[in-house]
């Protein structure tokens, strides 16, 4: 999973953008996001959409140590709480039309 750092001002984005929302820059360098972050908020979802074959699934919004905030799935046993430290891993989050889509799956740091 990548962040996209503006070549002009250095702001890190996720997902990719066409234009930097800080300096209007249009060129970015990819940067792997696999470090630690802080869980800002979370939910356990019981009414999942078609294509997710699980009874429940946990999701969260995480502020990465680099500053950028991202959404992702959570794979955490036990208590989940706001402010907990998590670590980004990459995994298959969904299979759509036979294609595996990868994304952030956060685990306990």
């Amino acid at each position, binding site marked *: 999973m990548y962040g996209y750092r503006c070549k002009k001002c250095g702001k890190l984005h996720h997902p990719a953008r066409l234009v930097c929302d800080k300096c209007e820059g249009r060129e970015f360098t990819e940067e792997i996001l696999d470090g630690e972050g802080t869980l800002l908020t979370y*939910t*356990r979802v019981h*009414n999942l959409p078609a*294509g997710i074959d699980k009874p429940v699934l946990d999701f969260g919004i995480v502020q990465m140590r680099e500053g950028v905030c991202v959404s992702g799935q959570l794979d955490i046993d036990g208590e989940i709480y706001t402010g907990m430290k998590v670590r980004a891993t990459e995994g298959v989050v969904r299979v*759509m039309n036979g294609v595996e889509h990868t*994304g*952030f799956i956060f685990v306990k740091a």
Partner: protein
Amino acid sequence: MREVGIVGVGHTKFGKSDLPFLDLLGAAALEALDDAGIKTGEGHCVDQLFVSSMGASIQNRISGSASALVDSLNLRPAMAECVENGPASGGSAVKLGYMAIASGMCDCVLVVGGEKMGKGKEATDFVATMLHPEAEYPYGLTLTSFAAMFTRLIMDKYGVTSEDLARIAVKNHANACHNPVAQLQKPVSLEAITTGPDMEKINPPVAEPLRRYDVCPMSDGAAAVVLCAMDIADKFKRRPVRIAGIGQATDTHCVANRAVPTDLLAVRLASQKAYKMAGLTADDMDCAELHDAFQILELVESEEAGFFPRGQGHIGIRNGETEIGGRIPINTSGGLKAKGHPLGATGISQIIEVVKQLRGEAAGRQVEGAKAGLCVNFGGFGNNVVATVLTKD
């Protein structure tokens, strides 16, 4: 710029419908045309038709709905287009109708919105297609997921409780009992959905901390309005309700990218634009229809629209200020929670409720002496919002 009014309204009963999508639209359209006293066929006065729907092409496998409807209604050769802006499609279509008349290009515009949502996991997935196609949707995230995470932030920051959200649902269900087009015309008690012995069965968790009564139902339905230039309004059967102000604003597509995650910035900006255009303030509003797809949204929108200071909306709910008879009645129609939420119809349906309030036709739920009202139609998870101010002429 020409001034624009509403001279006709039509609304199907929301809920499960067996009518095909185009017939559903047609039922609302004909009711609106009849309300305005407009005859179809040769010599009709409709210059333009807009059809709003988020997902007819996805859920009903129909594209070009406006072309089909304009012919079926015998309104050829009027101009016709479809409008898609997620759950804010209806508000956007009315805005475009306003622009068509204000510009001088049209005298009379018919705006029809509708949706046949389907049900279950497939419908949930369809609604989620408005999320970011890489950073949100593939994860299985849904609008309800984001509403739940937003709720947790608001609860932590401002002390809002699950009971506060339940109070909003109780109010909206009570209002819907007096609205013949509402989907859920049944009252619910606060005890039953918070502490009652059957609470877990009646009100199970959906996306924690949200439960069933914190979330709107899946709905089919359609709504339609006839817009006209105010300078020709005396040609129609009904006295016009003036569209005094329209504002629209956008925010980050990804919810995680919001600068202040507890704000609904686009609601604030759209409302402020609409008030400014109307030359009015939040204090001048006698009622409001706010987009309560989730009860937390009614609460925070009521603050962003200026009815309560930030973080104080739940105090107003506890005090009954948003009930009919209160300081600022909100969602007298029953809101999306109890009236229902067929996405493409919702923005138009909200406007129709305020039109009925200003006409004095909201029997059983009338806000006495209402002269002005606000509608907030919320697209995405707040990334595209249309606000409309209506006034009694």
